[in-house]
């Protein structure tokens, strides 16, 4: 778990494109394939990420892009490497109809904005440009429509602003 790369906190408003839209109960392990979930090697994971969905994914994703999910995103026993791989490509946030609690907790710890926005999965398609204000949980679809979700708690905002829970805890509790 220590090998995950260090990522800076996201900007206040994340501007990018929807890199992919997943369905309900999506098991994040499938992003890299179950046989690869124990690897933290970024280059190896890059060669596997999203191959089963879109072989061109790794080449077209740009920093600031987001992925979108349906209900219960991150269902299963989610492992960390798939999001390491996605973040390494520049994925800045996940917006979903709802999140599985274990996935939500684990990746929030890592500093990923995981924002619950009802209606998102049917409002966007791959390639759409969006602007996510992650503190307010609003998604501007650029065509006059703005979706409103559930803003993260004050504590979660602090975790994301710090670049992850470990950094926040070090600032709060380190005795050295």
């Amino acid at each position, binding site marked *: 778990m220590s090998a995950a790369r260090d990522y800076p906190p996201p900007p206040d408003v994340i501007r990018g494109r929807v890199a992919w839209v997943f369905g309900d109960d999506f098991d994040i392990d499938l992003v890299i394939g*179950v*046989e690869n979930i124990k690897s933290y090697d970024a280059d190896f994971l890059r060669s596997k990420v999203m191959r089963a969905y879109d072989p061109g994914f790794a080449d077209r994703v740009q920093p600031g892009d987001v992925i979108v999910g349906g*209900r*219960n995103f991150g269902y299963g026993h989610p492992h960390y490497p798939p999001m390491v791989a996605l973040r390494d490509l520049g994925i800045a946030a996940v917006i979903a109809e709802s999140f599985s*609690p274990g996935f939500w*907790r684990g990746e929030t710890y890592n500093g990923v904005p995981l924002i619950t926005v009802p209606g998102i999965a049917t409002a966007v398609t791959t390639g759409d440009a969006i602007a996510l204000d992650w503190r307010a949980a609003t998604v501007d679809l650029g065509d006059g429509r703005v979706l409103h979700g559930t803003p993260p708690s004050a*504590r979660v905002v602090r975790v994301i602003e710090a670049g992850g*829970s470990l950094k926040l*805890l070090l600032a709060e509790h380190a*005795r050295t």
Partner: protein
Amino acid sequence: MGHTIAEKILARAAGRDSVRAGESLPVRPDYMIAYDFPGYTDVMFRQMHDDFGIRELDEPGRYVVFIDHMLTKGNDKEQQVHQVTRDWCEFYGIELHEARGIGHQVMAELGYALPGNFLIHFDGHISGAGAFGALGWGVRRDLLEAWVSGQIFLDVPATTRFELTGEFAPGVDSRDLVHQIIADHGADGCAHQVMEYAGPGARAMSIDRRQGLCGMAMFTGAVSAVFEPDEAALAYARRVARTGFTPQQPDADADYVAVHSYDLSQVRPRVVLPGSARAANTRDAAELAGTPVTKAFIGSCASGRIEDIRAAALVLDGRQVAPGVELNVVPTSEAVHRQAEEEGLFDVLRAAGAKIARSSCDFCFGYQKPLQDGENCISTGVLNISGRMGSTQANIYLGSAFTVAASAVAGAISSAEEVSRS
């Protein structure tokens, strides 16, 4: 409006008169539990020491560590992981329980899972503590927050109540119930909530069955599950308690998201298709009858307790495991192992051709005797995703101990009802 059990437990642990679902606040767990696993506990200990500069714990008695994984190969790598764990626990004065069985069971036997207690772990199956009226919450890496600060920020969960009546029919148990609940309400039917079990059916259910039911809570999206602590739970707790405890009961006018009723006598044997425990994968066992199996497994933190072994013995008594099938039975703890020997249950299982293994987590996550390509396994393990028990090209079906034992006899998926008729 009154309060749920979860709200009352978290209020006490937070030092507040009351809390409401939806509030975000720091809470002080009674116990902060982990098992040693590479990349988790070893890293967390190193972070505490090197990064946080923590040389001494304020309250070492609130930390508990189990060695229950990787006990079976005896190679250098696993010995190193265990030694690192022993060294760190000694350094910090943390109570370490090694090779006594699966921690989620041993924590109950050793008196940590007491009514009204709040327990956290990085592993979500700690929810099994709910059998005793305790609240167990799997917080993943946020365990580090509690380990370095003594508290953890939580959003107080809402609760869905399950009113249970009746009793399970022969050959049916709480594993069938949880898969029925998932089938009825979906894999996110209780998302971010606590499942509160109550009613005459809950009181009639054995402690073992309650532990198995609560331990599977995460597959409904719940963060935990809890039974109203009744006389059976309190009697168990009094026998093992290492501290005082404060049982919590819900108020009659507690605020629930939903209330669902289940008549346990109507629950049928369920089998879950390989892939995951989601609703669409749940089937009546009879629908899958005839699906061949080569491996059968009774064990795990959900289903290897004495009631499960009794169930297997009931089915296997006077019968034989089918040729070409290997049935492995792994008691959830050493104490369960001893009891099963004393009751003569293992004699029955061995006579039927079953193999009895030492208590550990190792079968359930594919470390011991991993499945090979193309194998079908019927399992009481907690998870049936691809690769969980070995090859990603093997198939794992989930069922109760009754169903696994019956399938082992038939050489194909079968319910205990079918076997008893044959």
